[in-house]
C-alpha cells in the first residue's frame, strides 16, 4: 500500500466540524512521516442539513504523483478505512446527492477497516451493517456519537481518539508519535488530547467480519437515464397523488422513490395509537409529510420518509403519545400501525421496550438545554458511563429523566 484512503462518514451539521478536523488530522499526522496528502468533503453532499449523512475524505500517499492519481477523482472509489462517527449510520447512508442507499462498508476494501464510535456490541452493530462479499475488520472506539456542529465544537476528544485508533490500524502511514506531534501543532492541540489519542490507540476493539455476517437487506438503488431519455426543459414528473389506505378510508400519499431520507434519522417516533386523539397536528406539522392517514383516523409515520426531526413529538398534545427513540434500537422500517392493528398487546409490550429505555429516548439531536454538554462530559469522565439528561421542558421532559 502506497496510499491510504480514508472516508469520514458523519451527520450533517451535528458533526461537520468534527469530520473536517479528523480529515485534516489524518493528513497532518501522516505528514510527520513525510507523506503527502489532501483532505476534502464530498461536494455533492449538503452537510448544512440536519443529520444528513455526509462524507469527508483524507488521502495520504508516498509521493505527489500517487496523490495526484487520487486528486483526479471526484471521490475515492474505494477506501482503506471507513470512519463512522455515529453508529446509527451503520444502517447505510443516503447522500443528498441521490445515490440510493449505500451500505456503510460499500467502499471499504477487502481486509480494510470500518472504524466506528459506538457503545453497542459488535453483534448488535452487525444487525445493521450490510453484508459484504469480502472480509473486513470492524473496529470500535468506545464513545457516543459526538456532537460537533457548525457553530459549536464539542471538545470531547473524539477527533484525537479517532486519530489514535487510526495509528493502530494504519501504522505505516500514521505513527502514534506523528499523531501526537500533529495534535500539538494544530490549532486544537493540547497535551491532554495527545494523551487521549494514546489511550484510544491502546483501547481500540477489533473484530474480523466474515462474508456471512451482517444485514441481508438489499439496499434500494436506481439507474440514471440517458440524456435523450430525460424530459427536456429541466422538468421531472410530479409525485403522483396518493390513494386511500383501504376500503376508501385513510390516505397514503405517493412519495419520491429516489430519495427516501431515512438514513438522516438518528431517532424515530414511536407512536402509541391507543393514546392518539386524532388531532391531525403531527400530520400537518411533519416537514417531510411522513404521516399516512389510517382508516381509523390515526396517523402512521412512514419510516422510509421520516428523517427523525422530532417535530411530531414536540407538537403532539397527548403525553407520551409520540416518543422519539434512538434509531439503533430498530432493525427495519416496518409500519407501527400494522403491528399495532395485528396485536395490540404485543404492540404495547414492544413499545414499552422501546420508550422505556431511557438511554435510547434521550439520544440528543444536539444540545437540548444550556449546560447539557458539561453535565454529560463530567459524568462520562467521572464514571465512564453515560449521563441521562432531560429533554426540552414540554417534550415529555420528566419522563426522560432518570
Amino acid at each position, binding site marked *: 500500500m502506497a496510499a491510504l484512503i480514508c472516508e469520514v462518514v458523519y451527520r450533517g451539521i451535528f458533526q461537520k466540524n468534527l469530520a473536517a478536523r479528523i480529515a485534516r488530522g489524518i*493528513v497532518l499526522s501522516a505528514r510527520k512521516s513525510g507523506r*503527502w496528502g489532501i483532505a476534502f468533503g464530498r*461536494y*455533492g453532499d449538503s452537510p448544512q442539513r440536519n443529520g444528513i449523512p455526509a462524507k469527508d475524505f483524507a488521502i495520504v500517499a508516498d509521493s505527489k504523483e500517487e496523490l495526484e492519481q487520487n*486528486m483526479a477523482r*471526484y471521490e475515492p472509489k474505494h477506501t482503506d478505512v471507513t470512519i463512522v462517527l455515529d453508529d446509527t449510520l451503520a444502517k447505510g447512508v443516503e447522500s443528498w446527492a441521490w445515490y440510493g442507499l449505500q451500505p456503510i462498508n460499500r467502499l471499504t476494501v477487502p481486509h480494510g477497516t470500518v472504524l466506528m464510535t459506538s457503545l453497542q456490541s459488535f453483534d448488535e452493530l452487525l444487525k445493521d451493517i450490510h453484508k459484504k462479499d469480502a472480509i473486513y475488520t470492524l473496529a470500535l472506539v468506545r464513545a457516543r456519537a459526538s456532537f460537533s456542529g457548525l457553530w459549536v465544537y464539542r471538545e470531547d476528544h473524539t477527533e484525537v481518539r479517532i486519530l489514535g485508533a487510526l495509528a493502530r490500524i494504519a501504522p505505516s502511514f500514521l505513527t502514534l508519535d506523528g499523531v501526537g506531534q500533529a495534535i500539538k501543532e494544530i490549532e486544537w492541540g493540547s497535551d491532554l488530547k495527545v494523551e487521549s489519542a494514546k489511550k484510544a490507540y491502546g483501547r481500540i476493539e477489533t473484530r474480523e467480519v466474515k462474508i456471512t455476517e451482517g444485514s441481508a437487506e438489499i439496499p434500494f438503488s436506481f439507474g440514471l437515464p440517458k440524456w435523450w431519455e430525460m424530459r427536456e426543459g*429541466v422538468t421531472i414528473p410530479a409525485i403522483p397523488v396518493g390513494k386511500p389506505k383501504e376500503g376508501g378510508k385513510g390516505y397514503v400519499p405517493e412519495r419520491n422513490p429516489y430519495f427516501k431520507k431515512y438514513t438522516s434519522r438518528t431517532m424515530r417516533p414511536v407512536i402509541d395509537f391507543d393514546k392518539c386523539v386524532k388531532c391531525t397536528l403531527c400530520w400537518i406539522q411533519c416537514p417531510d409529510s411522513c404521516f399516512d392517514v389510517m382508516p381509523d383516523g390515526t396517523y402512521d409515520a412512514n419510516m422510509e420518509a421520516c428523517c427523525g426531526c422530532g417535530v411530531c413529538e414536540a407538537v403532539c398534545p397527548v403525553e407520551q403519545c409520540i416518543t422519539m427513540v434512538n434509531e439503533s434500537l430498530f432493525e427495519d422500517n416496518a409500519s407501527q400501525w400494522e403491528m399495532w392493528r395485528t396485536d395490540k398487546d404485543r404492540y404495547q409490550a414492544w413499545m414499552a421496550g422501546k420508550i422505556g429505555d431511557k438511554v435510547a429516548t434521550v439520544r440528543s439531536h444536539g444540545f437540548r438545554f444550556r449546560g447539557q454538554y458539561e453535565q454529560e462530559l463530567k459524568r462520562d469522565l467521572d464514571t465512564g458511563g453515560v449521563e441521562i439528561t432531560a429533554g426540552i421542558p414540554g417534550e415529555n421532559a420528566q419522563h426522560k429523566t432518570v
Partner: protein
Amino acid sequence: MAVATKAAPAAAEDKELLISGSEAVAEALTLADLDVVTAYPIRPYDTVMQAIAKKIANGQLVAEYIVAEGEHSQFEIVKHASTVGARVFCGSSGVGWAYAMECLVVTPPLRVPMVCLVGNRALDDPGAFGVEHNDALFVRDLGWMLCWIDSSQEALDTTLIAYRVAEDRRIFLPCAISADGAFLTHSQALTLVPPKEKVDTFLPRYNRGDLLLHPDNPITVAPQANEDWVIEIRRQNDEAMKRASTVIEEAYADFRRVFGRAPDNPWFEEYMTQDAEVVLVGMGTISLPIKVAIREMRAKGKKVGLVRLRWFRPFPTEKLVAALSKAQAIGVIDRDYSMGSPFMSGVVANEIRAAMYNADRRPPLLSFISGLGGREVTLEDVYKATEMCYGAAKAGRSDAKTHWLGVRD
C-alpha cells in the same frame, strides 16, 4: 553621510499549511495587505469570503469587509474603492457572476485593477454546484485578464502575481482567477505560504497615480460620451491588454527571483510534450486526470502530452501555436460549451482553431466537451479522446465534429 540602505529582509522560511485553494487565496490576500473586500455568498465562491472573514476576525488582516446585498453591488463597491486607491478583492460563481455582469462590464474601461476569484460553477438551470467554465468566460471579450489554476499553491502564487500585473500602471485592468469548484475551492492540500517580507519585495503598493480619485487630484470618472469618443476608449483598453503580455512575463520572472518558484512559461504548462505525438489541451484541474492518464499511456508506449492553459486572456497565441504545431494531432478538452459556435465546439477549441489559422503547420484538431457540471473526467474519457486523436493523426485530418465525453448516451 551615506544613504541608508534598506535592511535585507530576514531569511524567514515558507510555512507549510494544509489549506484549500480558497484558503490559499485568503493567505495571499493577507500577505498582499488587502484594503477592501466585498462579500456576497454563493457556493463555491463563499469559501473565500469565509476564509478572509476568519483572517480579519483573527486579527491577521486589517481590511474593510463589506457585506453587500448582492453580487451587483458587491462588484460596484470594490470598483469605487479601487478608484480611491484601495487594493480590492471580490469574486463570485456561476449565476452570481452573471448577476454582476453590468459591473463587470464597466470595470475594464475605467481601468480598475480589481482582482477576483471565480469559483467556477455551472450556470443555472439546473441549480447545481459543480464546475463549468462558462461563468468566467462571460467576460472574455471585455478587457478582463483571465487565468485558470490547478492547485492551492498556484492559487496563492497567482493571486500575488495578479495584483502585481493588474496594478501595473501600464495595465490597470481587472484580473479574474478561475478555480474549479470542488476540486480546488473545497480540497485542502499542502501549500507553502511565503513570509511577508518576500511578498513586500515582490508586490509594491498600489499607486493609482493620475487616475486617483482624490480632492488633491480633481478628476471625473466615467463621463457620458458619444460616438466621437467610444472607439478611442476601446483602442486604449486593447493596447493595455496587449501590454499585459510583457508585464505578465516580467511578473513571473520576478516572482521566480523572489520566491524561488514559478514556471518559466507563465502562459501554459507543458507536461511531457517534448516528444508528444498527441497533445491534449485543457484548463484547470482537468490536468490531474489527464496527467495520470498520460503516465499510464506512456507506460504502454504512447507518446502523449498535455498543454494546460493558464492564461486565457491575454491569449498566448504565438507561444501556443509554436507548442501545438509540433504535434501530430491536438485534442482540446473544454469544460465549457459554446452552443451554435463553429463545429458546435467548446470555447477553448475554437480559440485555438482561430489561433492556428495562420500557422504553417496545422495538425488535425479534435474538440471534446467533458466534465460539465462537475462530472469527473475519468481516465477512460482521456484514453478515448487520445485514441480519436491518433485516428485523426493517421488520417491527416480532423473530423470537424465535437465529441462529448462522459455523457450518458
